[in-house]
């Protein structure tokens, strides 16, 4: 796994959320330290031994933004991913200006968090090879031609974009929100785009998986989709 061995500090006062994050990150192979207040988070972060900090903004004892500001002043340079339930543009801007590297609005899908973390750490898929493959499904990135077991599969442009994205994130769950943002480049969430994505996935699945003994494109109920040869 990409995140194996990563030292992560989670500053989050909501116990359930903190535990869930810890659990999830442990499964990803991370080393996780929890801090439940701004004060505690600040002192942990000051030790400087973390590769990444997940920082909630609404914290007791010390506001998340303030913690972040002080950390940056003290030249603590670990990347910080802000988690916030405050959903306003100003907050986002403020967060990024204060020195946050990225933000996620609560509620978020864990899959999305992992994807963002990978982007932040540049451990993602910088190395796009010429041929992407999942099992016997192959995509030539130069010609965008797709074959399954050597037989050409004819996809529309959008379906190809979608498949490419899924292949880049193979074995990982991608959410509709991630697809909307990265494939459709749609930042607004209050749109009927989810239905559109579902239909495209259905089309893609039909072309890729129909009549094959091994299904590759799976729906993970309530979360999103995953392209994998393993049974999810």
């Amino acid at each position, binding site marked *: 796994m990409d995140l194996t061995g990563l030292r992560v500090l989670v500053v989050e006062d909501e116990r359930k959320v903190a535990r869930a994050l810890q659990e999830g990150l442990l499964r990803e192979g991370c080393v996780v330290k929890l801090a439940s207040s701004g004060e505690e988070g600040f002192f942990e972060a000051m030790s400087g031994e973390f590769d990444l900090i997940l920082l909630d903004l609404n914290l007791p004892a010390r506001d998340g933004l303030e913690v972040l500001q002080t950390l940056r002043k003290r030249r603590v340079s670990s990347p910080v991913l802000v988690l916030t339930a405050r*959903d*306003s*543009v100003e907050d986002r801007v403020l967060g990024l200006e204060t020195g946050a590297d990225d933000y996620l609005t609560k*509620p978020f899908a864990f899959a999305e968090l992992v994807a963002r973390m990978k982007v932040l750490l540049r451990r993602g898929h910088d190395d796009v090879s010429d041929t992407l493959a999942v099992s016997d499904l192959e995509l030539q990135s130069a010609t965008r031609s797709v074959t399954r077991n050597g037989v050409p599969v004819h996809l529309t442009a959008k379906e190809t974009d979608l498949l490419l994205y899924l292949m880049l994130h193979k074995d990982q769950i991608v959410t509709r929100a991630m697809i909307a943002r990265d494939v*459709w480049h749609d*930042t*607004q*969430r*209050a*749109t*009927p*785009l*989810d*239905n*559109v994505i579902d*239909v*495209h996935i259905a*089309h893609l699945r039909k072309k890729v998986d129909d009549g094959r003994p091994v299904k590759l494109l799976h729906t*993970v*109920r*309530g*979360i999103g989709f995953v392209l994998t040869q393993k049974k999810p």
Partner: protein
Amino acid sequence: MTAWKNLPIRIRLTLLHTMLFGGIMLLFVIGSLGFFFLYLKQHQDAVLKEDLEVIQQFVRLPFDAEFKDLVQSHDPQKYERFCEVWSGDGSLLFRSQDLGDQALGPAPAAADSTKSFNYQSLLFADGTRWRVVGSYHRSRGEAVFLRIAVSEEPLYDEISDAAVVLLTLSPLVLVLVAASAYYVSGRMLSPVELMAATARKISAENLDDRLPVLNPKDELGLLAATFNDLLERVHRSFDQLKRFTADASHELRTPLTAMRSVGEIGLQGTSTESEYREVIGSMLEENERLTDLVEKLLFLSRADGGRLPLDRSLFNLPDLIRETADLMGVLAEEKKQSISVNVPGVLPLSADRGLLRQAILGLIDNAIKYSPDHSSIRVTASVSGNGLIYIDVINEGPGIPPEFREEIFERFARVKAHEVEGARGTGLGLSIVRWIVHAHAGTVQVSDGEGHGSVFRVALPGPGNSPA
């Protein structure tokens, strides 16, 4: 000053009025007394001069009985008059006996040719005030200076009597003025009391109460009418809010209930792993629904709060429409519907592209949802004669009865009669569309299509008449 400000307006008006009136009255009294005094003095001087001229006729040296009689006679009916006669060289020739040592003035200056009258006021040793007039005249070729004096006391008495009368009366007048000012201001302010009393009683429970408008033409009536106007608007938005809260909690409860019951069922007895996965997945789906709903509510509340500034840019509207129709095409295909786009090649529009895209998406989504299978949806853009830009989304659905055409744009409003099986939305889509269009100073309306179906028409100000 704060003590003054703490007084009720009625008292302040009364005091102010009384003080102003008192000041004016004082000026008036002083002025009229002064005027009266001057008048009396002038009159006295005129009479005195006449007397002098008469007496001058009788001054003959040596003084005869007639003269003495004239100046000595002490008739109580007549007013007292003293006399002094000086010769041209400054020696006293005659002085009224009653005067004793009291002189009516120094020896006169040497006679001159002018026949001037010399007036002066004199304070006698006994404290009485006298008016003296003197003048030279010629008696048998000799210059003789005659002075006569009359008392000024009656004059002062009259003035002080008048002053006493006026000053005794003025407090009474002031009291009357204060009373009438108090009464009048009370009457003028009475609608305020009434308005305040009514306003105090108005609360959330009786927001339909209105303030009394006693005279719609005066300022207070206008004020009451303005307040009523305000109350009307408050009432309306309060109703809207109540309805919205009720609807929102219903919409929020539905996924919450689903989550809860799915979870409870899942925990009953023992299940296989795949069954548990099913349960958790189902709960996550409901969570998704809830998230989506909250997202939309947040959008609208930010919009209501004016915290959603338009990011205007100039772009080609037909491109946006084609792009949006393209995007939604797959959804239409699912229902075997077709979307046809009929737009001019170029139609520039200055608007927030992202928001307008969302609005068009919402309208097409609505059309797909509420139109039957195998029907067609048309999207057109055109410029009207008066420069408005029209975007029409035309469906072949069942149409919307006129009485619901406003309501469908309200939050959570779904026309029950037309709820189509499987078409499950949040009921916020069209109200988001309306908000976006309104934010661009446009309108969105629904009307009957040709034959059947509905036309959703968005009218936006064109580049020519767009608000700056």
